[in-house]
């Protein structure tokens, strides 16, 4: 049983086919890299799987068909994601961002919230504890009360991941987590990704920084123009000339 | 004051004469409001009688509110200059306090509460139905005398509201003047049926009620009623629909003059030849401006546009001087305060609204802007609280207006 499986996934915008009959499987506990030149359809793939874009074909999570579900239902199925551009509740504190993420897996009733019942207070306390745990886990424990908008870019990305982790996903889809980071930040991000996997969460990773991809992925899928052009271990991908050509540009041949 | 002079400034290059007048008007308004703010702390040398206005001074119906207020302000000044209200030999000065209602019911209620409860005013006046309704929620229980211009809402009028006076004639009273005139002018046989056009709100429905009673009284066939929205900008559709019923004449009330003009124009352009009567809320000049040459056979009761009698001319001149502005409506409303003065003097008190009300009901004035004025309605309403006065009917023919008829309404015996 695969954790995530897509069968003949196709996404069209008007006349353009952004994802073309893509079939892909990701196993449990895997870190899967998704690479390809800009415009290859990587983010579109995330958007389709997370329910943001309508698609044809089939998407399954642990053999449950999730195609056609709304994003919030897909998250409930255990599939969380982050975004290419930093996407946070920017005026919230870091802690509150993560607590919002915890909402899905914690008890909530409207009336309880309104009346402030002991149970709700317990829930909120649990929630906050959970959120702080997650923040500690991603290494942001000291920044819980900062307003998200005031954090530097790299830390905002980490908050984004913390928010996604807060929904306790079985699989996390990371869209360029290292974009715009310096070497040290990138290293700690790679580290974080490995630790997340260590907790039993599978990961699909879109990343342009090849150091990251080659360093932490078990398997890599290469997309170009919405189709899969290669799949395999980092070493295999590095040797694949089709990949070279697609990814590094035509001039790569000449060099 | 700063704001006021800025407001007036752009006009300077256009018409300096009006600018000064305008300034004077604005200054008097500010002056009026000043005592309101420091009310109760005025000098106590001569006794004063406070009269309060809860009138629309802003908003879409400000036209009527401001006209009414002008009548009171001018009247109070004239009376005070002449030695004030003399009650039992002692002169009393009149003080006018005005609060804006925007022409809204709840706002009018608030303004009246302020007048009655804070300024301790015992005599109030108001204008237009919405403000009146708001005012009446307050005045009658508080034992405060109210004079208003309001049609309809008849259940708020009569025996149960003994302190409530309606100074302006409704279409119903006017009808007993202008319909006989029209019958004489056009011939009874050519006015066998009529149709009604009015605004889709309480005023429109009220006037429609008056209209229906009138048509019944004169046995004129009612061909139906149409209501327009205040948001409407084009009256072709509604006029076309009315004309489909082929009425002999059309009544538009209480349609504002601009819209009446548009209706007249649409009707003429659509080939309608019959007379159009616009009782209540109308005005000649605007209709002429809007309709131009096409304006013909428009019958406008109660608007003596060009003052004729000496007292009318005097009133106009004073208004022009004091406010820089005069319109026939303001002239119409100018008699209210004089009737109050007469009532104070007749009752011999200004402290007992009930006694004043009794006296006011019997006041008859001979020479106002509206000619002869009296209160009537004993049979219909149980109390003499409805103002009736000479109806000046203007007739527009081929783009020119002339005063065609002056008569005291021939009220039916059971009125």
């Amino acid at each position, binding site marked *: 049983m695969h954790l995530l499986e897509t069968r003949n996934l196709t996404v069209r915008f008007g006349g353009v086919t952004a994802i073309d009959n893509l079939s892909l499987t990701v196993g449990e506990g895997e870190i899967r890299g998704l690479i390809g030149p800009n415009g290859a359809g990587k983010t579109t793939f995330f958007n389709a799987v997370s329910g943001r874009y309508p698609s044809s074909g089939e998407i399954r999570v642990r053999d449950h068909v999730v195609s056609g579900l709304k994003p919030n239902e897909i998250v409930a199925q255990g599939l969380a994601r982050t975004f290419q551009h930093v996407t946070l509740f920017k005026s*919230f504190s870091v802690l509150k961002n993560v607590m919002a993420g915890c909402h899905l897996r914690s008890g909530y009733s409207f009336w309880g919230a309104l009346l402030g019942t002991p149970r709700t207070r317990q829930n909120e306390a649990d929630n906050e504890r959970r959120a702080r745990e997650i923040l500690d886990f991603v290494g942001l424990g000291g920044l819980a009360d900062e307003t998200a908008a005031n954090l530097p870019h790299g830390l905002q990305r980490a908050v984004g991941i913390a928010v996604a982790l807060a929904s306790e996903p079985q699989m996390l889809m990371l869209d360029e987590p290292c974009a715009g980071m310096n070497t040290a930040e990138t290293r700690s991000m790679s580290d974080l990704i490995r630790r997340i996997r260590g907790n039993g969460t599978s990961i699909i990773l879109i990343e342009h920084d090849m150091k990251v991809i080659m360093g932490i992925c078990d398997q890599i899928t290469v997309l170009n123009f919405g189709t899969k052009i290669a799949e395999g271990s980092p070493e295999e991908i590095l040797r694949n000339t089709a990949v070279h050509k697609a990814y590094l540009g035509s001039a790569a041949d000449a060099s | 004051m700063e704001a006021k002079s800025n407001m007036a400034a752009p006009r300077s290059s256009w018409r300096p004469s009006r600018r000064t007048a305008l300034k004077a008007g604005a200054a008097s308004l500010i002056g009026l409001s000043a005592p309101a703010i420091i009310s109760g702390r005025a000098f106590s040398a001569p006794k004063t009688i406070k009269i309060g206005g809860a009138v629309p001074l802003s908003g879409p119906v400000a036209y009527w509110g401001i006209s009414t207020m002008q009548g009171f302000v001018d009247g109070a000044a004239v009376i005070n200059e002449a030695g004030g209200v003399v009650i039992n030999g002692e002169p009393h000065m009149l003080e006018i306090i005005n609060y804006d209602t925007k022409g809204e019911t*709840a706002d009018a209620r608030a303004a009246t509460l*302020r007048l009655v409860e804070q300024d301790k005013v015992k005599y109030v006046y108001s204008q237009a139905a919405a403000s009146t309704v708001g005012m009446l929620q307050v005045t009658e229980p508080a034992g405060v005398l109210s004079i208003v211009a309001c049609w309809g809402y008849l259940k708020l009028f009569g025996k149960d509201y003994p302190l409530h006076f309606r100074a302006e004639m409704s279409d119903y009273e006017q009808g007993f003047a202008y319909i006989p005139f029209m019958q004489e002018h056009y011939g009874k046989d050519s006015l066998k049926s009529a149709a009604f056009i009015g605004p889709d709100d309480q005023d429109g429905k009220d006037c429609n009620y008056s209209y229906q009673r009138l048509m019944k009284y004169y046995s004129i066939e009612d061909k139906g009623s149409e209501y327009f929205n205040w948001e409407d900008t084009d009256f072709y559709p509604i006029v076309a629909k009315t004309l489909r019923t082929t009425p002999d004449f059309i009544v538009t009330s209480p349609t504002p003059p601009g819209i009446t003009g548009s209706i007249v124009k649409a009707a003429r352009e659509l080939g309608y030849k019959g007379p159009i009567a616009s009782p209540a809320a109308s005005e000649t000049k605007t209709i002429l401006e809007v309709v131009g040459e096409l304006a013909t056979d428009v019958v406008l009761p109660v608007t003596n546009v060009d003052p004729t009698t000496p007292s009318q001319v005097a009133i106009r001149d004073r208004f022009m001087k004091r406010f820089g502005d005069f319109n026939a409506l303001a002239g119409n409303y100018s008699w209210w305060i004089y009737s109050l003065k007469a009532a104070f003097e007749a009752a011999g008190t200004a402290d007992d609204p009930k006694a004043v009300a009794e006296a006011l009901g019997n006041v008859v004035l001979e020479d106002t802007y509206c000619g002869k004025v009296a209160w009537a309605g004993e049979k219909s309403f149980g109390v003499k609280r409805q103002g009736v006065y000479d109806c000046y009917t203007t007739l527009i023919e081929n783009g020119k207006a002339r005063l065609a008829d002056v008569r005291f309404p021939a009220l039916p015996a059971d009125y």
Partner: protein
Amino acid sequence: MKVEQGTAAAQADGKGNAAPPSLNRYAWAALFAFTLAYPAAVSFDNYLLHVGITIAFNVALAASMWLIWSLGLVSFAHAGFMAIGAYTSALLLTKLGWPMWIGMPLGAILAGAAAVAISLPLMRTRAVYFFMASWSVGEVIKRTIAYFDGLTGGWNGVFDILPPTIDLGPIQINFADRIAYYYLAVVICAIIVLCIYRINDSRTGMIHWSISENELLAEHIGINVFKHKVIGFTIACVFAAVTGALYAHYQTFISPKSFDIWKSEFALVHIIVGGLTTVGGPVVGAISLTVIDETLRATGPFRVILFGVILIATVLLLPGGLETIPGRIRRALRGRKSS
């Protein structure tokens, strides 16, 4: 109308630097205490009590509209739902003799049902389009009421909507008394504000702001955005209906004109002037603008102009509204200390 919620929020001193909640709580307690003492403070001046009651209505309206705003939406259907509450309660009293104690909850339920039904299609629209669509809803409600004049009295409105009474043997209160009605209005208004405060302070509020802040992310962390929008909108409409019933029994007269677009617009103006990010905003905005409006009444024709000038001046000179004043003062003090 959720353009740049973030900016406004950031201006208003984000959550990070906000005053400690205890201070906040003191401010609310002081406000409530003042409200209770107000009648005595004005030596039971009936007119000033009337102003107090009007403020209570405006606060309740602005606060409930603000609840919708916390979802990132501006609803102009508010006056319409207020009308539903007012008319239900008024007609039940005048036609069937049922007191306000029954009419008000029934009006609220009716408004709630209508709000759920209408928000299913309404929530498809966004931003300015939502604004216009909700405006249409409000106008249609108002004009439909006017249209069925047999039942509702049409444009003539409904009269003699008597204030309620309480008769519990020893305790008898007739709310026709201004002081009694003042406390009734204040208590109901306080309950509404308290509910909104609690909602905003609880998880629900966090959900609302997360939707307002970033609907995309909210969906992707498992929040059912549509459901919460419908619920939030409905609650606010129910509050508007309760206020409407309260309003009707106080004014004793209502007509469709009482619920025209300006009712919604003034509520919106109260929010903008007061501030967009906390419940305090609409409360402070409604209080101060109502007082200003009443004070300006005596300026006659200049009343509306001055109101407009004050409105524009506040928007331009005090970005973020009145609620930012404490933060500004604090910053100014801190600035002086540090320098």
